């Protein structure tokens, strides 16, 4: 049974794509996306995309890395297996700064990358939009818009896209799995 339809259309100009996105949103279609080989300025506003949580994820990863790195060194060298280096204070923390710094950077970076993967839904090797042969231009030069709609409304959206100047308008139905 068909559950969701994707309606795709290609535009020649960024401005036309952004205008079409705004128009479709006015008509009440919220699940829109744009596809382009380089980021389109203003796409987030036109599509109503919220702020990215990546900076927050990076901050949490960095704090965890820094605190964890410090705690690891303290626990290992002072609590669990005390190492006396030439009679110096056990908790001579300046010597732990380099490693705590490295774990901060490491955890922050790993959180950023896997946060990006999680937010973008990677890896997802197949996606309904890939069913459209012409969509292959989206990573090269093409500017595409995709709308995720109920099957009943798909034809209306396709018509609207054509009216807004889209070419290669096509529809992909996702079967229920």
């Amino acid at each position, binding site marked *: 049974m068909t559950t969701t339809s994707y309606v795709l259309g290609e535009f020649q100009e960024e401005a036309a794509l952004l205008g079409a996105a705004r128009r479709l949103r006015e008509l009440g279609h919220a699940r829109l*996306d*744009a*596809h*382009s*080989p*380089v*980021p*389109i300025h203003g*796409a*987030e506003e036109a*599509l109503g*995309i919220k702020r*990215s949580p*990546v*900076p927050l994820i*990076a901050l949490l990863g*960095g704090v965890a890395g820094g605190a964890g790195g410090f705690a*690891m*060194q303290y626990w*290992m*060298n002072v609590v*669990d*297996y005390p*190492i006396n*280096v030439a009679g110096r204070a056990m908790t*001579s923390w300046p*010597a*732990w700064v*380099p*490693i705590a*710094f*490295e*774990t901060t*950077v*490491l955890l*922050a*970076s*790993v959180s*950023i*990358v896997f*946060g*990006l*993967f999680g*937010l*973008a*839904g*990677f*890896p*997802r*090797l*197949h*996606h309904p*939009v*890939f069913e459209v042969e012409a969509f*292959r*231009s*989206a*990573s*090269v*030069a093409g500017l595409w818009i995709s709308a995720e709609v109920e099957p009943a409304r798909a034809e209306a959206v396709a018509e609207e896209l054509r009216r807004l100047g889209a070419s290669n308008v096509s529809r992909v139905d996702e079967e229920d799995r």
Partner: protein
Amino acid sequence: MSAEPAAKHLERLDPLDPVPVLVGRPSDVELDRQLFGKVGQKPGKAWYGLMTVCLALAGVLFGCLGYTVVTGIGVWGNNIPVGWAFDIINFVWWIGIGHAGTLISAILLLFQQKWRTSINRFAEAMTLFAVMQALLFPALHTGRPWFDYWLFPYPSSLALWPNFKSPLLWDVFAVNTYFLVSLLFWYVGLLPDLAALRDSARSRAARMAYGVFALGWRGSARHWQHYRIAYLLLAGLATPLVLSVHTIVSFDFAVSVLPGWHTTIFPPYFVAGAIFSGFAMVLTLVIPARKVFGFENVITGRHLENMAKVMLATGMMVSYGYLMEHFHAWYGGNHYEFDTFFKTRMFGPYAPVYWLMIACNVITPHIFWWKRARQSLVVLWVASILVNVGMWTERFIIIVTSLHRDYLPSSWAMYYPTWVDWGIYVGTLGFFGTLFLLFLRFVPAVSASEVKELRRELDHEAHAQAPAAVPHLP
């Protein structure tokens, strides 16, 4: 005179902007065709020739590594008092080379330098492969590399933990973090290009292979939103990271009490030296590669000239480091320091290496005061090789001369590398070359998605500046 030729005329006359960062305004499709043209295709004879040489040298490397592991590191020339020699020289040399890649990709991104765009992929690949070579040396120098996992803090049956107050352990964390973060940064940067390769691949096998690595990139506005922030933040993290890595490498020396090592100038001076040698290596590699691939319109004379300027600047920072080291040795009034700098290094048994270092690192970069030298491919390439040699001799001088004559004359001894030392060093050059040639064949060496963005930015700028560029004549 109409407005159009007047603008062109002025553009040519602008002394501050002689060569563009992108020649012409190729369309997206043209850029992909050019930049991906040779990716995954059957390479030419030159590639096979170079690959044969590099593979042969890599064979020497793995032969020597096998011999070292089976026999023990007694097959190397280092022994007390020179306990560190080729292994640490090569480690520091390779790590330093890697640093230019991060500088180009991260620091120049934060400074919004447009000329970084077409060389960053290339330089980052160089970083990864250089760090791989670097990691081999300390791993082997432990003597029993099959126990190297002891370096990491893991709950072992021995019930003990590493000593985190040791600079050598700081190194383990710094270099491994550096490698992992560089790899992630490079891979994230590749995603849009991998998707473009997937979508323009002709064979099913290529489409599958690039498709798997592209992870399902659809160029969606949501992807781009997260991606741009992620990339910028990674650059922001890689910037202090790269400075920390060579700082920590320099701590291996500076934290000890040996004359010639025990100095606070080491961290900045090591970082400057790393960037100096790294830019030299980028030039060594990029000058032939852009010719073979026909990338002269995206990696233009401007890029080469800017790299020469960076080498001139960092070369002078390195020279200043040398000067200050010598000044402190004299002004500090410590006999051992004075003897190390003014007797052992300058006139001791390794003096020819010292003077070669001075010639390569202090004198060579000054050729780049001349514009004609910065614009000559031959001069650039030869100078880049000399700087690579010079930076290797610098590490030789720092490590070997300080160790072979320290405090007690009774413990002085000479160091000579063995054929195994040379085999491993030359072998890493071959292994590095092998990886680099594979990279050139299977991965787009210039980031197409970033050049597309650059072209849009340049278009935008030209649009904004066009009316102002034509003088208003009464």
